[in-house]
């Protein structure tokens, strides 16, 4: 009986001490909060948002566009790609994007690169939200157009005209784009980028970042 009590008390001290230590000394609470509870892996949900490519001026929660987007928008279209570690949907889309831009990178990297896409510049940002900066992570909800909060997510930001002002104009697509194979996914994204570049070229002359 005494042996059991010693075992029980030891186990309780080890478990509660380790749990308390983890909560106090590591950011595991934040990691679970931001990486699992607040952001959905769409493959875990077993659903995908219906793909809608309509562009909008309004950010998801009315927040301003991040500086890194505005800075790059002066030179061309901005393409944001959000992903996370344990996410089969992200794994499906990862090679699609690599083929689209003909460029390889590791899944946990943070990537910023300017690509020439049919003679126009496209600023590509890849963000794995499990390994990224606060600025990049904070930009994720800004462009969550359909309030899905799910990954993978792709955003294409161009310039649009509204009420006499040229300003950022974007669309967001999610998951595996509702398509069955990589060829169709690449064709879909290529068409979307081309459309964004056309809109950008129509409006770039009147764009003033500080407006």
């Amino acid at each position, binding site marked *: 009986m005494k042996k059991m009590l010693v075992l*029980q008390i030891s186990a309780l001290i080890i478990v509660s001490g380790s749990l308390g230590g983890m909560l106090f000394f590591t950011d595991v*609470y934040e990691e679970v909060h931001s990486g699992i509870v607040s952001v959905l892996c769409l493959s*875990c*949900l077993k*659903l995908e948002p219906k793909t809608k490519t309509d562009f909008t001026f309004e950010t998801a929660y009315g927040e301003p566009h991040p500086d890194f987007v505005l800075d790059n928008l002066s030179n061309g279209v901005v393409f944001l790609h959000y992903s996370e570690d*344990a996410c*089969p949907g992200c794994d499906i889309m990862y090679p699609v994007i690599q083929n689209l831009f003909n460029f390889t990178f590791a899944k946990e990297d943070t990537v910023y690169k300017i690509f020439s896409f049919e003679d126009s510049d496209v600023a590509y940002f890849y963000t794995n939200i499990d390994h990224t900066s606060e600025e990049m992570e904070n930009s994720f909800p800004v462009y969550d157009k359909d309030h*899905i909060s799910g990954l993978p997510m792709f955003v294409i930001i161009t310039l649009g005209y509204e009420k006499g002002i040229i300003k950022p104009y974007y669309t967001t697509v999610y*998951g595996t784009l509702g398509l069955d194979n990589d060829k169709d996914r690449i064709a879909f994204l290529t068409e979307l980028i081309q459309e964004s570049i056309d809109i950008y070229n129509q409006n770039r002359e009147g764009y003033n970042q500080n407006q």
Partner: protein
Amino acid sequence: MKFQIKRLLSQILIFFSANLGAFGFKTGFCYPFFYCNSCPAATSACPLRAIEQSVYKGSFKWRLLLFPILILGFFGVTSGRAICGWACPIGLLQRGTGKIARKLKKYPLIKKIGDHKIEPYLRYVKYFTLIGIVILTTALIGFMFTDICPVGILTGTLPTLILYPSKFVPNPFFWIALIIFILFLVLIFTIERGWCRYFCPVGAILAPFNKISFLHVSLVSIEIFEKECLHCNACSNACPMGIDVTNMNRDPECILCGKCIDVCPKKLIKFERN
């Protein structure tokens, strides 16, 4: 207040507290039971999702592995598998379906399945589910249990489809998960607490803690028990986990529901706190 009513109130209260995300309350904890963070109202993370993230495709994030295990371990050391009987929303669901399963037990085929000689061995399947599908396939090939989880379909996918009927379409995992969900329903309607007994990976983490938990179900002293037991078998018949109560000693399957304590005519079974 009757003991089983108290347990029902506890289950209902915890079900609502697990869904406070509907009011914007979200935490960074893992649930100490089986519930899906894809649920539109979820407050916390599925412990299995954290474990899967920690080992996905050969990666190793020790914090995400240890965190849910320590949370489950804390409850396990203090009260064993009481979480399954007193808190788990899937346990609450099976409490409802268990009554139907009990009635169906009158049919010879169902009784035969429940009493089959391999039934005790099927209880080890949950450990294979935990080690095989939650950990190994996730680590080796990236195939995760949560992608086909029937509890995820019930608490995450279906509520999302009901709340946002025109917003989502099924992904390739949906149809496999739906078939597993239908089998899950057949199981819990035919075998009382069938999911907890045979397949629940969270139950597999909690079960070994029954061996050392402070709170557990035990017999009064052996001498009194041997002298006074009527051998009516009411305790084993009442047990939703199908345990042979009179011969149990800190059984890993015991969910501390207290049904055996309630039905014993001689009050020879009790909760013990040491």
